[in-house]
């Protein structure tokens, strides 16, 4: 160890950290009292509506997380600054490409797709959690991802204030439309445990619930175009 490293260690021992809080009682209370994670659709919708109402009614909380929205296995948080994240193009870093049937076996369910002349040949799978197919709509590439709502933060988005987040309705199911400044997407892997890989996303995103899973469209489509595509999925 160099003398500078030694000095840094010594400096660390001289720092005045704030007093350590006793977190255990509050953590215990929250863990004991947490709601069943797979809430009914109606309750989820009510939560989204309430969150929107609160977000516009109160000044920012003391936390740097300013506002949050929750939907099925996804949550969207407004933050002061985005964490560092790797930017991805639409078609890269989607996971491992597999023939569609193999991908569906791996994630444990058949993908719900819009009416297509021909099903996509392959899907991209991350862990055993999220499957994504590439589609074309209105002359643009669209990513459709599907994942079971296995945890409240299975997928998380972090957005800054320039981003529009608004509730929408997709065939009677609650959804969120996210448009504007780039946002960061992270997700949890069911197989390997808590792991988040932040990715910077620049497209518009529509999230909605359907049959116990969360669906996500990422594209350059306008809101009416994205909603039209989502509503065509039966």
């Amino acid at each position, binding site marked *: 160890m*160099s003398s*500078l*490293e030694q*000095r*840094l*260690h*010594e*400096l*660390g*021992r*001289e*720092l*005045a*950290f*704030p007093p*350590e*809080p*006793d*977190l*255990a009682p*509050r*953590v*215990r209370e*929250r*863990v*004991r009292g*947490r709601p069943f*994670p797979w809430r009914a659709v109606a309750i989820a919708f009510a939560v989204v509506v309430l969150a929107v109402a609160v977000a516009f009614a109160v000044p920012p909380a*003391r*936390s*740097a*997380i300013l506002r949050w929205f929750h939907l099925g296995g996804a949550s969207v*948080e407004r*933050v*002061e*600054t985005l*964490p*560092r994240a790797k930017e991805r193009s639409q078609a890269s870093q989607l996971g491992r490409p597999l023939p569609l049937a193999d991908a569906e076996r791996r994630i444990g369910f058949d993908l719900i797709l819009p009416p297509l002349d021909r099903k996509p040949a392959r899907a991209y799978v991350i862990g055993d959690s999220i499957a994504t197919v590439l589609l074309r709509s209105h002359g643009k590439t669209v990513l459709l991802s599907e994942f079971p709502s296995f*945890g*409240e*933060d299975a997928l998380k988005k*972090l957005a800054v204030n320039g981003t529009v987040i608004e509730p929408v309705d997709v065939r009677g199911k609650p959804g969120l439309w996210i448009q504007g400044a780039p946002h960061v997407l*992270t997700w*949890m*892997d*069911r*197989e*390997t*445990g*808590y*792991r*988040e890989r*932040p990715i910077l996303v620049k497209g518009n995103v529509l999230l909605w619930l359907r049959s116990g899973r969360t669906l996500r469209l990422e594209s350059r489509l306008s809101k009416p175009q994205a909603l039209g595509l989502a509503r065509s999925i039966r």
Partner: protein
Amino acid sequence: MVDRPLDEAELVERARRGDLEAWETLVRTYQGMAFRTAYVLAGNAADAEEAAQDGFVKAHRALGRFRRGAALKPWLLRIVANEARNRRRSAARRERLTLRAAAQDRPGDAVPSPEAALLARESHERLLAAVERLSEEHRDAVACRYFLDLSEEETAAALGIRKGTVKSRLSRALERLRETLEEEA
């Protein structure tokens, strides 16, 4: 007969089966480390407390997916640090790290002469100021590795980067610190 204390793997297993006291024991074991890590990354005591608390709650929810036999500390650090980074304040609004008051000697410390204590303090203040002037990613790496005494692997978990990246960031950070300190000498 005195019961032997439960080891970490047993506590994790119990917590996984719903034993809240076991989880509470683990929280108390790691809350200091979690809070300090969150403080360094978030830059604010209130946010750090919130991040650490949220991290422990989320870790409990994810316990079913925690790999049996794996080390708990890096896994917890990853979760807590992720919460803290999401709450990160801009540099201008960050609470700056400061030195303990001179009177707060640690138990067992030899008492230095007033002159030696003053010189040591000035040296620490110069070094701390140089660390605060590093880029965010270099400062974080230095704070986790040296101030919090995390291993390279734990630092990698806390910062969400590879161990090799920790090594290269630390190497560049030390180089910058040496340059700064030499310029000021």
